[in-house]
């Protein structure tokens, strides 16, 4: 997957921060789908559509995992002391920091998250 993201970025001459932001956001979402969404070892369980438009990359991330709206995850308490830092929720927090205009829909058996990366 990351090779294809790299190719997409190269075709758009996206480097530096935008490439890093897109890579990290997709890595976090994919890892969540595999580790927590029930998509491990399920062929075709994740689809990623990237569309370049003026000033932004539009991202559609779909998975056929258990229904899960990442936008309902409360933000982690970043100021909690070390021993109290929860283990989860950081990946979704990153996605919300990195991407704009996030929207979630459940479409049949698919979780569908759309978002934009300003470029």
């Amino acid at each position: 997957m990351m090779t294809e993201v790299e190719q997409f970025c190269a075709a758009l001459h996206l480097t530096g921060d935008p490439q890093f932001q897109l890579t990290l956001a997709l890595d976090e979402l994919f890892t969540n789908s595999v580790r927590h969404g029930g998509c491990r070892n399920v062929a075709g369980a994740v689809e990623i559509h990237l569309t370049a438009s003026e000033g932004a990359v539009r991202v559609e991330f779909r998975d056929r995992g258990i229904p899960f709206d990442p936008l309902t995850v409360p933000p982690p308490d970043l100021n909690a002391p070390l021993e109290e830092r929860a283990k989860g929720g950081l990946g979704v927090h990153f996605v919300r920091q990195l991407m704009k205009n996030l929207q979630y829909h459940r479409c049949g058996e698919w979780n569908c998250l759309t978002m934009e990366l300003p470029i």
Partner: protein
Amino acid sequence: MIQATQEVRSGWCVVGVTGRADGECADTLEAILRAAVEGNPKVAADFSRLDYISSAGIRAVLQAARAAEGSHREFAVCSLSPPVKKVFDMSGLHHILRIHGELPC
């Protein structure tokens, strides 16, 4: 893919980490850092050759830091590359971890 070197300098065990700390490699990173913490009173993780880190890698560092705190060892994270520093900043770990621009030794 993640690799590590280890050497003792001026009382610090310096763990040099190379590669990508993503979901695939996070368990390896945690094992490397925890082993260093268990075997040394002062550990500095040198991340100058760490190209990438995701939340899974951040959690590995967090677990090592908790292990160090629990056993009263010193644990410092050093020499973050700009993209890795950005992820640490987003994680808030810079509030609770010792993060150095350069190695302490």
